[in-house]
């Protein structure tokens, strides 16, 4: 055990820091759940790509830097410390990208990876359906192979597709074998959202913005070369994607450590009134310690992976931990803010505290998406602890 960065890592950190300092927009971008903000974020992705900072863990020939996990953690630390924009193409680069590299043909990699890296193609997910939420194997949307075998004809409905309103492509699972049940007979297909027969209906989120949407498929024709993996192998391809999502890449510790830091600062600035509720001080300490613990455990996992280990069922512990931490931190901040805690950011008396409310609203989704925390607890009990399924 050696808990120190090497000189190379320090130099890498300096390099990231100075690039971000020179390039992060001085004015925060508008929310990417607005049309204007979405466009701003797309441009930011292009800028990241130009600097080769878009997806540093990708191989160099794909616009990355072949960075290892330690460099990725350092990059994320600097990225959040610099208050750089949220990643509008995270579904693409963090979820679909790694899945494509594992399951895609050479032709597919050439065709899709560059577009997602530059921000030209923004991807959304097509997993959930009205009757297939936590029970993802209940998917009913169909993709029928045409008689000449050249394309699929998709019919059905997907829902809760984040950023689908302005996205270019959707990746998801469809039932290709109508006789099949549950996990069998599903196929992973990439669908252009401008295809004929697609209707996207925005769903306003808690903040009123159309951050996610329903997607209706009415005889949508998709060429077979948009299939990722083999026909009927969709479940295992999707599991790889879900694994990346729950695993290390999507929610790096830096994000929560920065929130914890802002919370400590908020508490210090308002300590006199905050201490009228003694539970606030306790919650601030807990926020710092939990964010720190999340960082420590992530570093430990990263070191294990770099030494050839694997992420197992303990990845499910990670998702519960950060989502509950995120809620707890924002709840505490709103208590400290008193009446200002309920004011929308654009209210004249909100001051500069509005992002705590935005964060609080977003934090409500954490324990629900990417597999509810109840599902995660079942996975921990059954796969990590070996408790009986029935």
């Amino acid at each position: 055990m050696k808990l120190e960065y090497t000189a190379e890592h320090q130099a890498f950190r300096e390099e990231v820091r100075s690039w971000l300092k020179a390039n992060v927009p001085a004015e925060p971008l508008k929310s990417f759940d607005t049309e204007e903000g979405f466009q701003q974020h797309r441009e930011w992705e292009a800028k990241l790509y130009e600097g080769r900072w878009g997806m540093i863990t990708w191989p160099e020939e794909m616009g990355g830097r072949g960075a290892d996990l330690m460099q990725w953690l350092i990059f994320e630390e600097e990225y959040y410390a610099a208050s750089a924009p949220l990643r509008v193409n995270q579904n693409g680069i963090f979820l679909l990208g790694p899945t494509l590299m594992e399951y895609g043909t050479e032709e597919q990699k050439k065709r899709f990876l560059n577009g997602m890296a530059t921000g030209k193609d923004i991807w959304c997910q097509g997993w959930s359906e009205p009757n297939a939420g936590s029970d993802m194997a209940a998917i009913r949307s169909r993709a029928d192979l045409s008689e000449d075998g050249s394309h699929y004809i998709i019919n059905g409905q997907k829902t809760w597709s984040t950023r689908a309103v302005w996205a270019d492509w959707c990746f998801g699972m469809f039932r290709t074998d109508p006789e099949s049940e549950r996990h069998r007979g599903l196929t992973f297909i990439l669908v252009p959202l401008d295809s004929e027969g697609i209707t996207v209906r925005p769903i306003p989120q808690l903040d009123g913005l159309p951050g996610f949407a329903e997607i209706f498929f009415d005889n949508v024709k998709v060429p077979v070369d948009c299939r990722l993996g083999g026909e009927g192998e969709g479940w295992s391809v999707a599991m790889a994607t879900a694994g990346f999502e729950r695993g290390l890449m999507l929610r790096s510790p830096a994000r929560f450590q920065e929130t914890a830091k802002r919370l400590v600062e908020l508490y210090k600035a308002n300590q006199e009134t905050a201490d009228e509720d003694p539970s606030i001080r306790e919650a601030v300490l807990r926020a710092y310690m939990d964010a720190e613990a999340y960082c420590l455990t992530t570093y430990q996992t990263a070191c294990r992976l770099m030494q050839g280990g694997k992420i197992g069922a303990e990845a499910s512990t990670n998702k519960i931990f950060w989502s509950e931490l995120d809620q707890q931190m924002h709840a505490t901040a709103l208590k400290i803010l008193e009446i200002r805690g309920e004011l929308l950011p654009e209210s004249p008396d909100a001051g500069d505290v509005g992002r705590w409310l935005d964060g609080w609203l977003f934090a409500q989704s954490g324990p629900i998406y990417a597999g509810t925390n109840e599902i995660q607890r079942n996975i921990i009990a059954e796969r990590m602890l070996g408790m009986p399924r029935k």
Partner: protein
Amino acid sequence: MDFTFSEDQLLFQESVRDFLVNEITPDKIRQLWETDSGRSDELWQQLAELGLTGLTVPEDFGGLGMNELDFVLLAQEAGYVALSEPLVNSVLVATPLLSECGNSAIAEQWLPKIASGEARAVVGLAVNKLVEDAHCADLLLLEKDGAIYAVEAANASLRANESVDPGRKLFAVDFDPAAAVCLADGDTAQALLNKALNRGALGVAAQSLGLAQRMIDLSVQYTSERKQFGVAIGSFQAVKHHMANIAYKLEYAKTPVYRAAYDIANDTPRAELSVSHAKLAACEVADLAAKNSIQVHGAMGYTWEVDLHIFMKRAWAFNSSYGTAGFHKNRVAAALLADNAALGAGATF
């Protein structure tokens, strides 16, 4: 950056675990409860033969010359079996205090005997009010009025207390400073005492991880066997979630404990903060393990006969050992709220 244990450290953990799980069975613990001292000379000798009593004793004095990071996984295993012999305090608190106190005569006299298992040394810190295992100690290192004294057993008078945990032996100790050797006073003593407290808290934290794991294992086993409504009760989601809640919190208590061990072993400036975080996180998860485990054991968990209480009571007792939660929270608060506190992304290491 390497946040993993070495192959050697993991192998040592494995061999110590095998030994402890085979030797310190719940039956053996119950037998020891029935004895006057509650301690076993034979067991202590076995621990000495494994090199454990001398783990942190310098090699010149017959020990292994290892450090807190080498021991932390072993302390976790000691917690897993609720070991009552004063091994963790001897290795983490008494031995380093003797080595670092600056009195070479005392160190030369006692450290070889501690390594060989001939003698036991215990430490009495004011923060703990009572002294653990004073009755089986040959040498007591006692804090009094800000100074540290080495007191031989014959010169200490003990008043025994019974703990809720029958494995813990706690004593009020009185002694005449005139008949003892003053090892340190003033600022020197304060620095030594602070280190002793941090090491003791690390020991409690590491053992609490083991206790939590043991309670998970007992509960998973019980709920997989116990049937109601025709099925194992462990198949019910309400029961599963009680267990999952312990398991995920345990994952995030382990790394703070390992980091604290590293920080003490390397004497880093953040050691005090790391230790307090570790102690709070580990005691909290052991507490939760106790609460959820007795619940899923049902009435069986409320009995003396079922083994759960051996571990549950140790977890309860540890809460206020080597600093209450309030003490450690105040230390964390002092570090966080300081003007120059390093916080946020990138400030962890």
